[in-house]
């Protein structure tokens, strides 16, 4: 398998980040998930990405729905407020919170059941609105927490431990997101932490909704032969779109590359995403191209990973709302209660 990440600069991880915090300052509570669960691997990469990006944890708000995956916000960034909502409705809670305080850096964690079934409507509308936050789907093809029923992302022909075969087609959440105009769509794999961390960093830098569908094996209910969401199956079918490198805005690194070999995308905050082609020239800024490639992968039985689609300049919902710079949550009374004359005028009009 090809390397999924592009080495840029020195890969050394310092003991303290730029705001003087240690990696432990980004830790969460102890996980109660099954040992080896893909979801825990993702939590670890979230810790790493936020630490390395020097995001102040107090600025972060964590959201989730219901499921094993949705429990994980308790297992990273304890110093950030978290909200475990109801099944499939994390987008509404997160949207409301972002309205109240658009300075928050939102990260939502959901599952394939939480997103692709009960929460599909809210997921789609959140994309349509382009709420500026990260939305991770920890996709294991089953309902882990309710003990192993098929979800809507289970592949056709995939087998449950009990022998039941899924005969419905899967929903491709990445294709759906691209189709709905999402400005940041990626697919990762819990078994490829390096790629995951770069995707996460790019997502942190994105001003808009960043949808990341992560294949995250459920070791208890969907990791057997016959499952298409097992570690083994995913490793064998992982098809990398490109090698991903991430250059934060504060680093002045020049990237050495042969002309035509690398595509760079500059993000809202000035950071750069560097994509090195592997087998083909893939342009993630072209939505049509992305949809075609996803469809090809589906027919070929490939699990396509990498940055599927990027459109960093798209306006976020908060830009469109045109709210004052300060969080609405803490505006003073003088700014939220119009003066006496305003009421007098309204009353006059009604007389």
């Amino acid at each position, binding site marked *: 398998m090809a390397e999924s990440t592009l080495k840029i600069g020195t890969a050394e991880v310092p003991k303290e980040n730029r705001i003087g915090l240690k990696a432990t300052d980004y830790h969460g509570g102890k996980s109660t998930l099954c040992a080896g669960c893909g979801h825990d691997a993702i939590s670890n990469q979230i810790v790493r990405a936020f630490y390395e990006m020097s995001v102040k944890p107090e600025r972060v708000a964590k959201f989730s729905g219901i499921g094993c995956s949705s429990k994980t916000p308790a297992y990273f960034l304890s110093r*950030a407020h978290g*909200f475990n909502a109801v099944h499939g409705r994390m987008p509404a809670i997160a949207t*409301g919170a972002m309205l109240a305080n658009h300075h928050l850096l939102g990260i939502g964690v959901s599952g394939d059941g939480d997103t692709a079934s009960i929460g599909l409507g809210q997921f789609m509308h959140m994309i349509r609105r382009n709420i500026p936050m990260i939305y991770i789907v920890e996709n294991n093809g089953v309902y882990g927490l309710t003990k192993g029923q098929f979800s809507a992302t289970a592949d056709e022909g995939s087998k449950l431990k009990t022998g039941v075969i899924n005969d419905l087609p899967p929903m491709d959440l990445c294709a759906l997101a691209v189709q709905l105009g999402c400005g940041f769509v990626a697919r990762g794999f819990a078994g490829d932490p390096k790629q995951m961390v770069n995707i996460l960093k790019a997502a942190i830098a994105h001003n808009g909704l960043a949808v990341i569908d992560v294949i995250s094996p459920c070791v208890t209910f969907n990791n057997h032969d016959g499952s298409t969401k097992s570690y083994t199956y995913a490793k064998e079918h992982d098809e990398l779109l490109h090698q991903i490198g991430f250059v934060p805005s504060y680093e002045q690194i020049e990237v050495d590359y042969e002309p035509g070999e690398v595509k760079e995308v500059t993000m809202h905050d000035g950071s750069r995403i560097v994509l090195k082609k592997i087998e083909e020239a893939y342009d993630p800024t072209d939505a049509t191209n992305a949809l075609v490639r996803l469809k090809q992968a589906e027919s070929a039985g490939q699990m396509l990973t990498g940055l599927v689609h990027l459109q960093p300049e798209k306006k976020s919902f908060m830009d469109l709302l045109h709210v004052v710079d300060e969080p609405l949550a803490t*505006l003073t009374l003088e700014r939220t209660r119009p003066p006496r004359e305003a*009421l007098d005028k*309204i009353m006059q009009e009604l007389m």
Partner: protein
Amino acid sequence: MPESQTASAVLETASAGGDPIVNDCTIHVATVNGSGSQSSNNVLMRSIFQMGVPVSGKNMFPSNIAGLPTWFTIRANKDGWIARKKEVDIMVCMNAQTAREDVAGLPPGALCIYDAPLNLKSSRPDIAFFEVPFAKLAGELADDSRLRKLLANMVYVGVVAQLLGIEREELVNAITKQFKGKKKAIDPNVAAIDKGMDFARASLPKQEKHRIERMNATAGKIIIDGNAAAAIGAMFGGVTAVTWYPITPSSSLCESLIDYLRQYRVEKDGKATFAVVQAEDELAAVGMVLGAGWAGARSMTSTAGPGISLMAEFVGLGYFAEIPGVIWDIQRVGPSTGLPTRTAQGDVNQVAYLSHGDTQHIVLIPSSVSECFDFAIEALDLAEEFQTPVFVLSDLDLGMNNWMSDPFKYPEKPIRRGKVLTKEKLDELKGQWGRYADVDGDGIPWRTLPGTDHPMASYFTRGSGHDDFARYSEKPEVYKATVDRLARKIETAKLFVPPPAVDISEGARIGFIAYGTTDFALEEARYQLRTEHGIETSYLRLRSLPFTGDVRSFVSMHDRIYVVEQNRDGQMGDLLKLELGADQEKIRKILHYTGLPCDARSITEAVVQMEATIECPEPLLLVRAEPPAAKASPMASGTQPTTRATED
């Protein structure tokens, strides 16, 4: 003209020996939905109001954009009784579909203005008919057929005005107001009014039965619907996040709120101090309210019964996770394609305990437009103070109809934002705090907002499974402590919610309990009972849930309690029974559930009937009471609900 002869004959009998009835009539206008009659009706209502006569206007409209029948009722009453009155005094028939039925339902002696092609004059000998060729008159005003249709509606305003003596000057003022000073719209409408007045003056018989005369009971008052009043209140209550999904009869609340916010809450640099989202459904709308409330916004939504049903799961989470948010329920009839454009008070049970588990909610119940304004502010305050979803229970009649009111008072008190620990307070506490710890003994914990710049500020929000420090716990004693504390919180709320409005009459043996829009009919019914039947009554008007101590003492002071409400089963009556213990025996229900607003006469008749058939400890003095019906109606026995107003 032959029709004038018919009319004058009836008019003579109708007014024989009597003076005209001044400033006390109901005008009922039947039109086709979508024909633009709304403006005409508003102008008619407003001109009466501007003549100083107390007035109310009710729109009885179908669930339809155009084509189905619709009615508008204006009640003018010098004594200020502005509830719906069942009897129509002056009918305006513009709709062929309903004309025959409309006329059939009129009481003898009523006046009926009708569109000439309907040819109603011989349909009843006891009605005074006034035939008007509306199409012909409107045709003289405009060429465009659409405009002609609209103007025909303004012509009837002129006719009614001339017949009743409404002053032309006030009609012109009302038109100017209605069309916001736009000359292009004002001129043709004034011409239409004149057309109607001239025609009535020249070609219709005079009538002496009903008159509108100038008086001075409306000076300084405003006319507004409850939804707009709520919107204004919310804006002055400092609302910052509004998330909603359209549904009649609540849509106009958020729509007018958006209008007002755009006018008054955008700063000089063009940036807004509010955010509005039209959500994808009510689940999302209430989820956004809670997300925003959790992160510190003053958040609200408005909906009707069907939307409340969808919000059930989230509201429970809001209750257990202790998150503020305001939900307006503008009640209407039935689910789906029921009578979605008709009024009811059928959501009491639903909102009182919405969701699963041991939930109980704070509910505010306005009964006037000024209370809509006040409670919009109060609800936002209570939600943040008690960190819980707060309902405001209005209804279609209050929300969408026009009501007279004193102007709203500017809120003098600052808004109340509840117990929030800031970074500075956390520093003082050295970061030692528990999100769900009841440190003050009132059941209300302290909270922090996400984004608070302190390493100890954060906590993890989830359902009921948490300890005082918001750590996950499934321990039986921890869960029990949590729900017991939530019950204490509701106990505290009893001291802070708006208390009932109580009016005790000296010597009254019976008391009324009612709430919301039933109030208008109820006060009038009390007047009727006193003046027509010599029955003194006391009255407690509920303004909130949970019940406060006032309710028990009110009930204990009276022998019988009539709970009057607009639903089939007497939902509030049942909640009261649960509350009252032994005193529940005193509860009797009077229920009005036709989709139309409750009227006074129905209440009066029900009380008289129930009082007459009751075994009283001491006989009540029933002056002029009708004898009990010979055939006992199945509903006539004391404790059972009475049917009423089947003719509605």
